[in-house]
């Protein structure tokens, strides 16, 4: 409860929460507010913002930019959340095994993690989506596959730190099985930095998703922010609004999640310095 109170008093964290909540609302209400398919032509093409019935204008095929942004929010948030969950699962698993077992297992696993950190992640993601085919689940897999290394390193460091603490040693001495030690004693104490890093991973995942769909590697059946910008790129001289507004949507979501993450960091790990983000 104290944590909750502290978070409410955190101005930028709350600002992030409010912006993010509004975007989630827009995403949820998209089918109610704009019942038409976002791919449908609903007016004349190249209509500037604030023209009749079109708050944010229409694109080169007469599609509503505002509707595109609302439906795009669904895609971006879904992919951001799902790929982060995948990355957290893989990262925590590898980090936990590595930090708990130590020794050669740790050595090998950290080598693999380091390798994945060296490989240019975005290009690996491009390659994965291009090979497996551009569907929602493949995009999630690709982003998850390039996002787990920081989480693995963090979890490993936490496990290494906690493993030698007295209460964990006590549990081991009582003869509790490793599973119990990990899930009852270590993980609950390591969870808050994992939550913070996980929340920041969502922001990065949204950025990667937008770049993938900008490159034409998004799911072709789903409207997304990156796709809108990519499609409007060639007409930017005539129609600025088609690329400006979806971009603002990306910036706002990522900014909101980053602010929220920093707010969580300050309230969950009050002793850590604010500079500890990177």
């Amino acid at each position, binding site marked *: 409860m104290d944590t909750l109170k502290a978070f409410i008093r955190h101005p930028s964290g709350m600002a992030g929460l409010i912006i993010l909540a509004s975007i989630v609302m827009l995403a949820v209400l998209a089918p109610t507010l704009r019942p038409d398919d976002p791919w449908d032509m609903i007016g004349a093409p190249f209509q500037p913002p604030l023209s009749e019935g079109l708050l944010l204008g229409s694109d080169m095929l007469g599609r509503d930019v505002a509707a595109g942004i609302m439906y795009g929010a669904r895609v971006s948030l879904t992919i951001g959340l799902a790929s982060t969950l995948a990355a957290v699962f893989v990262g925590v698993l590898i980090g936990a095994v590595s930090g708990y077992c130590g020794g050669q297992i740790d050595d090998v696993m950290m080598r693999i993690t380091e390798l994945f*950190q060296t490989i*240019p992640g*975005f290009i690996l993601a491009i390659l994965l989506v291009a*090979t*497996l085919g551009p569907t929602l689940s493949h995009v999630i897999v690709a982003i998850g596959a390039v996002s787990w290394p920081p989480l693995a390193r963090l979890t490993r460091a936490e496990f290494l730190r906690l493993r030698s603490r007295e209460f964990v040693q006590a549990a081991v001495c009582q003869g509790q099985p490793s599973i119990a030690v990990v899930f009852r004693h270590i993980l609950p104490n390591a969870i808050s930095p994992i939550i913070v890093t996980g929340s920041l991973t969502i922001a990065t995942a949204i950025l990667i998703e937008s770049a993938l769909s*900008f490159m034409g590697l998004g799911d072709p059946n789903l409207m997304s922010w990156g796709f809108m910008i990519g499609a409007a790129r060639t007409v930017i001289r005539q129609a600025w609004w088609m690329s400006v507004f979806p971009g603002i949507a*990306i910036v706002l979501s990522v*900014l909101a999640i980053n602010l929220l993450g920093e707010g969580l960091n300050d309230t969950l790990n009050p002793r850590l310095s*604010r*500079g500890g983000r990177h």
Partner: protein
Amino acid sequence: MSSIALRLTGSRGIAVVLAVAGWLAKFVAVVLVIATFSFLLVHAAPGDPAQVIAGQSGAADDKLLSQLREEYGLDKPYIVQLATYLKRVVTLDLGYSYRQQRPVLTLLAERMPATLLLTGSAFLLALIVGITLGTLAGVRAGKWSDMMLTVISLLFYAMPVFWLGLMLVLLFSVQLDWLPAFGYVTIGVPMTPIARARDILWHLTLPVMSLAAVYLAIYARLMRSSVIDITHQDFIKTARAKGLKQGRVVVRHILRNAILPVVTVAGMQAGSLVGGAVVIETVFAWPGLGRLTYDAVLQRDYPVLLGIFLVMSVIVIILNLVTDATYRLVDPRVTTRSAS
């Protein structure tokens, strides 16, 4: 010469040899793993691997397909295929782009200079400006200019690189008409080498600015907190108590120590910088590897994509080496530590 020889025989020399050996081992390991990975991907792709290598055009004729099966040994067991593939990679045979009708290595070599120019300039710009701004903000912690830096870096950090690029195009080429929006050099105009270099620099400005912005923001923030940390340490108080001027304390005592974490992070982010170059080249029609990636994605040209993946990873390892060497240069303690 004799002093260098002397140094190389000492513990420092051993450390250098160890570092080079470690780096070479890492290099070989990464290349082999990436090659293996590429091999697995081609087989994970839906459809016939021969079809995939040919470019999934569907129009590839049977003669070409059977020739490819022969060449890659696709009828042999996987392990033999993998060995064949790795052997080709090691001998720098990256295959043939059936879409572009040219060897992949030639395509990559042609596009390499433009990408190196773009990423290199962006990396340097981000480091130099980021460190300068971060130091200024750290020294003036709490003042409005410091607050400004925090806000701007948060904004840059939330921006997709390709969108920032487009916004800069909107401002500097569409509205103000100051800078060219795309391309590498003005086409169809005969130029002297100097005029050509200036023209390339002109075209380089916007892509480099867009690519460098995020990293600049990250380095500036990191430098700022690092400078603040160092400023409170005892040896800085000593330096000030000795009566050293502020400028000298900042440059000789604070900067040199505060720069280390920035160099570390810069090295770790080399991979993401190279990834950013791919989208930036797409936005600005910059004729480098990134633009080639975009075309290869559109055409599903796998041999080219795999080659790019390999070459980009190698660029990242080289950038890592550069930051590692910088680290050793700035902090001589690192060498002694790794030697013991």
